[in-house]
Each structure stands twice: as structure tokens, then as C-alpha cells.
């Protein structure tokens, strides 16, 4: 497939935003149970949510560049019963709304006790918004990943590993960003967030390696024989019916040499996993610059990861476009 930068930015930016929100609410939950010191809610949760919101808006803006008719984008909420893309279009603004409300409640220090849990734990609006936001964050990960994983003839994508990777890689970049952000606004949480960022990055390494391993061993289900329905071991395309390009030759081929693909793969393997891991471990107890570099490197790595994700997918329609003349 031809990697579209609009979609690459969309998926990586909202992935980081979802991870950041999950990191904020994880910290809040731990703090509620007195497992973590209570940070400055106004600064850490409030501003952190707005940071997540900025990333979400940036992702949404990027996604519009993928559309031929952005002014009709509102129509795309219609087919949520059958289309994962439609579901994503519904869940993304809903999640943005909840992140905004969650951040606003913390920003305004609005903490009226709505009810008390059996253990004597007070429940305020931010807790309810946080739980709802967490559910929507996971729903959004699933919707985004299922857009790709549900296409059964793109066998590189048609796997539960696609969903796991989207959750873990988005989570990893979000928690790394949260650690960097906490080093400015809530230093007492840095080691907690950097610790989780390390764990999620390691889990992401396992699941992404698993999908790389799986994809390297795929045997294409469709062949030239099934594509034109002729039983003969040797079939060669002589013409594809036109000399210039077409949508079919532009949209489904990345057009890059194999060396480029391999280079991007190794760049993302290094930039998403070992480099941020070393930086996170070295800045467990603070170090804004190091943590910020960890996030930036990991995010650049994820851009490459997403590029590779698209480029690696081999569409069966390519069987029909192997020779110009």
C-alpha cells in the first residue's frame, strides 16, 4: 500500500493522546487509592488533558487531508453498524469531548463528592469522566486498528496483533510523553510514569516483533492463477491495459526500493524500543530534557513504524498491475 502521511499522522498523534490520557487517569487512580502522592491536579491533570486534546485535534486535522471531500466528513458517522471507519469517526470526537471535560474539571478544581465507595473512597466528577474516557480511549484504539485488521485480504493487517500493536505502541508513546510532562508539572510521578512507559514499550516490542515475524512468513492466498482463473504454473503479465499510471498503480504500491523498506524497518525498531527504553531508565528520577528526547525519538520511530505498516501490506489487486507493456 502507498503510505499516506495524513493517516500516519492521524494514527500516531491520537495514539499518543490516548496513551497520555490513560497515563493521567492511571496516575489519578493510583493517587486516589493513596498509592501515589497527590500531584497538583490543576497543572498535571488539567494541562495534561489539554496537551492530549491538542494532539487529538492535530490528528483530526491531519485525517481531513486524506479525504477527497472533507466538507462531507460529517456523513461518515452514518454506517457505524458495519464500518469500523464510521465507528472511529464517532468515537474520536466523543473521546475528545470527554478529555476536554476531564481536563476542564481538573482545571477548575471541580471536585464535589458525588458518592462514596464502600471503602470510604470519595468519587468526584473527574473519576467518572476518567473511567468513561478510559473506556473510549480503548474503544478508539480498537476502532482505529480494526479499520486495518478487518480487511481480510490484506493478510499483513488481518491479525489480532494489529489491534494489540495499536494499543501498546500508542500507550507507550503516551506514557513516555506523560513522564516527560510530569517532570515539569508533577516530578513526584515521574518514576511511576516512566516505569509504566518502560513496561508498555517492552510489551510493544514483543507484540510488534511477533507481527514482524508473522508477516515475514505469510504466504499470499491469491496468486496470478486465482486472479485470472487460469491453471498454469507460468503466467506472465504482458500489459496492464495502459501505459501511464492509474489510481491502481498509485494507491497500492509504495514505489520504494526494498532497501528503503528495510532501512525504515530497522530505524523504527531502534527508535521505538531500545533508545526510548535507555532514555526512560536513565531518567527514572527526573530529567525533562532526556524524557522529552525519549518521547520525540519514540514518536519519530512510530511515524516510521506506521509508514512501514502501510508499505508492507501487499494488496491482492497488485497482481493485476505487474507490467506496463
Amino acid at each position, binding site marked *: *500500500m502507498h503510505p499516506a502521511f495524513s493517516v500516519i499522522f492521524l494514527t500516531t498523534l491520537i495514539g499518543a493522546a490516548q496513551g497520555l490520557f490513560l497515563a493521567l487517569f492511571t496516575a489519578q487512580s493510583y493517587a486516589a487509592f493513596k498509592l501515589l502522592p497527590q500531584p497538583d491536579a490543576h497543572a498535571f491533570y488539567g494541562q495534561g488533558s489539554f496537551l492530549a486534546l491538542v494532539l487529538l485535534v492535530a490528528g483530526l486535522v491531519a485525517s481531513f487531508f*486524506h*479525504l*477527497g*471531500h*472533507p466538507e*462531507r*466528513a460529517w*456523513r*461518515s*458517522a*452514518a*454506517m457505524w453498524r*458495519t*464500518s*469500523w*471507519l*464510521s465507528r472511529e*469517526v464517532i468515537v474520536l470526537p466523543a473521546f475528545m469531548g470527554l478529555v476536554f471535560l476531564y481536563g476542564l474539571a481538573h482545571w477548575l478544581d471541580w471536585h464535589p463528592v458525588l458518592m462514596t465507595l464502600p471503602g470510604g473512597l470519595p468519587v468526584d466528577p473527574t473519576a467518572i469522566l476518567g473511567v468513561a474516557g478510559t473506556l473510549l480511549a480503548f474503544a478508539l484504539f480498537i476502532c482505529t486498528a480494526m*479499520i486495518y485488521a*478487518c*480487511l*481480510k*485480504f*490484506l493478510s499483513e493487517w488481518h491479525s489480532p496483533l494489529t489491534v494489540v500493536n495499536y494499543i501498546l505502541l500508542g500507550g507507550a508513546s503516551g506514557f513516555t510523553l506523560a513522564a516527560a510532562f510530569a517532570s515539569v508539572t508533577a516530578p513526584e510521578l515521574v518514576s511511576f510514569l516512566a516505569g509504566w512507559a518502560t513496561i508498555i514499550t517492552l510489551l510493544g516490542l514483543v507484540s510488534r516483533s511477533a507481527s514482524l515475524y508473522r508477516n515475514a512468513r505469510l504466504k499470499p*492466498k*491469491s496468486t*496470478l492463477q*486465482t*486472479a*485470472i*482463473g*487460469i491453471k*498454469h504454473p*507460468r*503466467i*506472465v*503479465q*504482458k*500489459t*496492464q*491495459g*495502459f*501505459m*501511464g*499510471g*492509474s*489510481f*491502481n498503480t498509485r*494507491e*497500492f504500491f509504495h514505489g520504494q526500493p526494498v532497501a528503503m523498506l528495510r532501512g525504515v524497518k530497522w530505524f523504527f525498531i531502534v527508535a521505538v524500543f531500545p533508545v526510548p527504553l535507555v532514555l526512560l531508565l536513565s531518567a527514572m528520577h527526573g530529567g525533562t530534557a532526556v524524557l522529552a528526547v525519549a518521547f520525540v525519538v519514540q514518536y519519530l520511530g512510530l511515524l516510521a513504524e506506521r509508514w512501514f505498516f502501510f508499505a508492507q501490506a501487499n*494488496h*491482492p*489487486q*497488485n497482481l*493485476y*498491475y505487474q507490467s506496463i507493456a
Partner: protein
Amino acid sequence: MTQLALVIDLNVCVGCQACVTSCKEWNTSGSAGPMVDQNPYGTDPTGTFFNRVQTFEVGEFPNTETVHFPKSCLHCEDPPCVPVCPTGASYKRKEDGIVLVNYDKCIGCKYCSWACPYGARELDEQQQVMKKCTLCVDRIYDMTMTEDDRKPSCVKACPTSARLFGDIHDPESAVSLAIRESGGYPLMPEWGTHPANHYLPRRKTRIKIHEDELERADNPLKVDRQLPKPAMNEPTLDDVTTW
């Protein structure tokens, strides 16, 4: 239920591209149009087409066969491009099974093209909406035309009648008959899309000649061995006498 479809006979197609140009001509001026070209006279021309004819070579020299392969939307009975459309612009008509795109609803997200294993959908670069073969829906129901003309324009254009058009759910239709009796097959059956369009294979007329058809097995003289059986390379009575 009706399922309109094309049946394309690869045994007859000569790869003349008449269906390609006829399709483009009809549809660029019809309700699906315009199907605009970019850079048509430049070095890298491109444009929207609903139908293409490709050519494949099967086998190894000297035993090769050239197969011309017309390729358009197959109007699948279970079209994977329809459920993925977020706006509902892509739909399959209940009444005749034609898969269509509502150009006023399409947002040009290209997702349906990813979901089609055949590469049957193209984004129109000028209108920025997804386009594909309509089976000439604006033609086949046009009552101002004579019945003979109410066929897709590719079918009308084909000089060798390689393209048949009809209802594959009607067991007595010409297309059903062709599929049933001439070995019609769908493309990429492994994906379960159940394409409505079928292709008829290359067919050769062969006869099987058994040895006893060349040499009489019931020749009593040879069976009884009353006379020595002449070797096959020896002259026969016909060769040495004039009768």
C-alpha cells in the same frame, strides 16, 4: 431476485480495447461522468476508467497462449467494499444487484478501494469521489432506447461477442447457461466475495483417437493368423496392386 452481471468469454476476446473506449465514451458523457483525464497528451497520462483489457502470456515458448483479460467491477454478491463505506455512499441495489456509488455522499476516503481485492474502484482525480463500473445503469433501463440497445456499452461494442450480459440468478438466461455449460468461473474465489461477473475459460476442440480406430482390430485374417501378418511398414495390397 435479480443479479445482473457480465460473462466474459476469454476464448473469444481478442484484446481490441473496443469495450474500454466504448465504456469511457458512454460513461464520461453519462450520469457517471465526466471521467476526466489528467495530462492526456503529456508524458504521463492518467485518468479514470471503469474497464481495462489486460494481456497475459500463459506457458513457456513455444507452448504459449496469449490471454486477453477484460477487467471491471465484478458486482460481487457479497461485496466487501460496501460494508466498510462510512457514509453509505457505496451500496448494492436490492432490485438488480448492481454495486453503485452515490457521488453526492462519497467523501473520497478511498477505504472501499482498499477493501476490494480486485482493484475495481478508482478515485476520480477531478471530482475526488470513488468511481467504478455501473453496468451502464443509466442505459440498461432507458426505455427510449430499443431493447437491443439496453445493454452495457462494453457489451454493445464487443466485435466478437465476448461479453454477455444478463441475470445470473435466472437459470434459463443466456449468461447462466454460459456459466453452467461452458465452465464459467469467478475470480479469486478464495475471498468469498461471490463475484457476479464470471469468466469463460479458453477452450480447445480436441478429439481422442484410439489405436483400434486406425487399424481394424476385427480383421479376421489377422486374428486367425492364417496368413502371416504383414509388418506395419510393409506395403499393403493397396500399394502393390491396381485392382
